[in-house]
């Protein structure tokens, strides 16, 4: 059956016939017509860049309500400055192929980068203008000035140049080393840039401009990714993991300081962090141990309910109010216990069946919380009304509800929770990476790839699976106790199946078994719906579509774990060699 299915990821295999366009555009660097082709592509590209720059200085529309006013000639608006930046990047990618910068081309010289950038710029114009028209009622296509069309033409020319550029085998890309200080500098600069971009992007109020900004970031990222920059980056990051981790945490800690005491973005940021923390926990279960859990939200709910029932809320149903540290531990242990109860008998069944059992368990949890309302059972949860009025956390007199000053910068309620959650997520990431790089992690990989073989090799399959399941539940329970306080109330419908699906989607979208990928996935899935409120009605539709498309075209996620990627593309020989090379490099 498998032979009839073509594999989208295996372009590199030599027997694989390439599409006619690739063959036309490629030509080997040694063939005699390569310089002529290079010149032609170079000129086309330069014309495209020139058109883009011209477009940035032209009027795009005579309607000042569109795109934050781009009606003026010679005075670029925000969206036009984005275009200008993209044009400069295209110019840079062109110049490293021919001209003074061509020495750099050895590292970044893939023509696919330019092609992706060109297509991206065209799409950027269409999306930015289209979104703006869709969001502003009084506008229509007739309100467009030539600037837009000049820009689109420029984008298409850049894409064409990318198509025509001869293939350039970037020599030794994978093993190119630079001085350590330079590599560290790149990592730190990138993290700082990401922080600045996040602070800037969240500050954009106009939804059309926000969409334009998103499209801008996506285009730049696509250009860099297709140009091979991220491949190089992943090697660099591999050498400086601690630097990246510290820089990221420093940036994350600095984020509330950029908000100037405003709670609007901080409340989004805290909900993103809770979601991300839970997704990281699920990542241990799904990404490392390969156990598909469709009821994971129940463990978060278990923690939240324990946190609520043992809190000082007037509606709490248990008359014992220990300090939060104890509550958090009890909540986490309770969730882990549930994990054990549901896990120990069911882990004997594997794969799909486990997924369904966990789904059923998730539903049972929700229904139970719904029914323990005094009518159908003991009154523990107040049923559908939930437990409201959960008081703020208070650590040794530090009130999480109040605004504190930190060197003159106000730290609001949400910022307080943000810091706490950041510590929590740091802890979860620590657990994750330590487990992944240990004997336990290797055991999980073995189980994931072939359970029977692993067992035959003496891996304690049952014990390791239980550890993953209960451990994941423990972390989710821990996050749940904090969530109860941050959300102020706990109700059963916060913990329905769809939430589990969202968590799983974050893990899958980002890249199973990776830290950065899952964080990225969580941010995308939680942040975008919050910022794109006008889109709210279509949110789930797009979510469903996204899952289907991801599985079809990039099942390994945005940030792919090499080994995982190989599991999804197991006839890709080049990738297999790469994974083996990395593995042996690590060992020696």
């Amino acid at each position, binding site marked *: *059956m*498998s032979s*009839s*299915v073509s594999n989208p990821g295996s372009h590199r295999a030599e027997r694989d016939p390439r599409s006619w366009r690739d063959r036309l555009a490629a030509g080997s660097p040694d063939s005699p017509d390569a310089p002529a082709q290079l010149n032609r592509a170079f000129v086309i590209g330069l014309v495209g860049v020139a058109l883009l720059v011209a477009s940035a200085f032209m009027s795009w529309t005579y309607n000042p309500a569109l795109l934050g006013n781009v009606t003026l000639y010679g005075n670029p608006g925000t969206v036009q400055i984005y275009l200008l930046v993209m044009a400069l990047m295209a110019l840079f990618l062109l110049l490293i192929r021919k001209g003074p910068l061509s020495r750099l081309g050895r590292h970044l010289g893939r023509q696919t980068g330019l092609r992706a950038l060109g297509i991206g710029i065209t799409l950027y114009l269409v999306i930015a203008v289209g979104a703006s028209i869709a969001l502003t009622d009084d506008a229509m296509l007739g309100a467009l000035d030539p600037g837009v069309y000049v820009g689109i033409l420029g984008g298409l020319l850049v894409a064409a140049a990318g198509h025509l550029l001869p293939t350039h085998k970037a020599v030794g890309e994978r093993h190119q080393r630079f001085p350590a200080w330079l590599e560290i500098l790149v990592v730190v600069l990138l993290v700082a840039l990401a922080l600045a971009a996040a602070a800037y992007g969240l500050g954009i109020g106009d939804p059309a401009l926000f969409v334009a900004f998103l499209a801008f970031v996506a285009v730049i990222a696509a250009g860099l990714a297709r140009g091979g920059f991220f491949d190089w980056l992943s090697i660099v990051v591999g050498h400086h993991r601690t630097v990246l981790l510290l820089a990221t945490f420093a940036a994350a800690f600095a984020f509330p300081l950029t908000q100037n005491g405003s709670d609007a973005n901080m409340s989004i940021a805290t909900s993103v962090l809770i979601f991300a923390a839970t997704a990281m926990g699920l990542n241990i279960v799904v990404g490392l141990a*390969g156990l*598909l859990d*469709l009821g994971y939200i129940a463990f978060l709910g278990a923690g939240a309910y324990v946190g609520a029932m043992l809190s000082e809320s007037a509606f709490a149903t248990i008359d014992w109010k220990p300090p939060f540290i104890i509550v958090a531990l009890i909540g986490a242990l309770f969730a882990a216990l549930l994990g054990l109860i*549901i896990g120990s*008998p*069911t882990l*004997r*069944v*594997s*794969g*799909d*069946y486990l*997924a*369904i*059992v966990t*789904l*059923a*368990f998730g*539903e*049972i949890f929700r*229904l*139970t919380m*719904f*029914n323990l309302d005094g*009518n*159908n*059972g003991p009154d523990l949860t107040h049923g559908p009304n939930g437990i409201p009025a959960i008081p703020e956390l208070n650590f040794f007199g530090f009130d999480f509800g109040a605004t504190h000053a930190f060197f003159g910068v106000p730290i609001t309620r949400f910022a307080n929770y943000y810091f706490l959650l950041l510590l929590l997520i740091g802890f979860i990431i620590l657990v994750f990476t330590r487990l992944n790089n240990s004997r336990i992690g290797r055991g999980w990989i073995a189980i994931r790839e*072939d*359970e029977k073989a692993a067992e035959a090799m003496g891996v304690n399959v049952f014990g390791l699976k239980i550890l993953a399941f209960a451990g994941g539940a423990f972390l989710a329970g821990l996050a749940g106790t904090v969530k109860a306080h941050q959300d102020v109330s706990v109700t059963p419908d916060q913990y329905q*199946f*769809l939430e589990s*699906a969202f968590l*799983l*989607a974050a893990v*899958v979208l980002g890249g199973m078994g990776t830290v950065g990928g899952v964080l990225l996935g969580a941010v995308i899935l939680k942040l975008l719906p919050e910022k794109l409120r006008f889109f709210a*009605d*279509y949110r*789930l*539709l797009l*979510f*469903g*579509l*996204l*899952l*289907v498309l*991801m*599985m*079809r075209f990039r*099942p390994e996620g945005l940030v792919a774990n090499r080994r995982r990627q190989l*599991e*999804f593309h197991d006839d890709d020989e080049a990738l297999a060699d790469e994974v083996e090379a990395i593995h042996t490099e690590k060992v020696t």
Partner: protein
Amino acid sequence: MDLLQQLVNGLTLGSLYALIAVGYTVVYGIVQLINFAHGEVFMIGAFGGLTTYLALFQGTTAWWTLPIMLVGAVAASVLTAVVMERVAYRPLRSAPRLAPLITAIGISVFLQELVRLFYGKIPGLPDAKSRLPFPRIDGVTGPAFSIGGLDFQRPALFTMGSLAVCAAFLWWFINRTKQGRAMQAVSQDPDTARLMGIDVDRIIVTAFALGAALAAIAGVAQGLQNNNIDFRMGFMAGLKAFTAAVLGGIGNVAGAVVGGLTLGVVEALASQLGPTAWKDVWAFGLLILVLVFRPQGIMGARVVDRA
């Protein structure tokens, strides 16, 4: 007497589960895929029936509209299932098992939202964001029969009758037609079946279509029973039907019918003996127990041992 009445109710509910469960089991038997979006196929069947009615017979309640509604329902469901198989599942056939399952969740959410957002945008059709009333049909809806103190709802009789007819048809199709035998061959060994000249892709599509047709009938039956349908009806029904399929032994068609009826009766008895609010908990509890202690189900099927 109460117990007997609950038994009747349980069998009614069970017939509905059984009709849907066949879809899970037929597909699983052939491609070892849990088509998680099958509940949505059931929902689309119900909407297909309603659409046919609204487009052609609005205002009448004559009995002869029902067969045509069923045709409309089956057409909608089969089309959905076939497109789904072709576009989403077929490319993933050799992928790790996680991929089709996640795809199925995606399709499920997507189809629900598609109906919720766009059903009302079709001219002449009502907005599907809330519950939609289902048409009344002479003879099939209306006052219940009473035989020996037991109430038989008319739509319930329709549901049970449909199950009987469909089961007979399925038996005939699988055991007596060339297609059906090819299906058995593929479920036993796809590679050898291909060598024997069986078009495996076509058999898989047939399996999806067969399951969808039965789900569509169940969709109409559910509409007649509850007097209304909504875009969310597929999730819970799908989950229950999956439970039924597992209970009977997934991959075993007769098992799906037995499992459906058993699950219906268990649920009805559970609501007789305890608070109604807990009946879903009983159903899922049963699912977990079966999966743990007898994963091959009541009737026994292939032993499931897949990572």
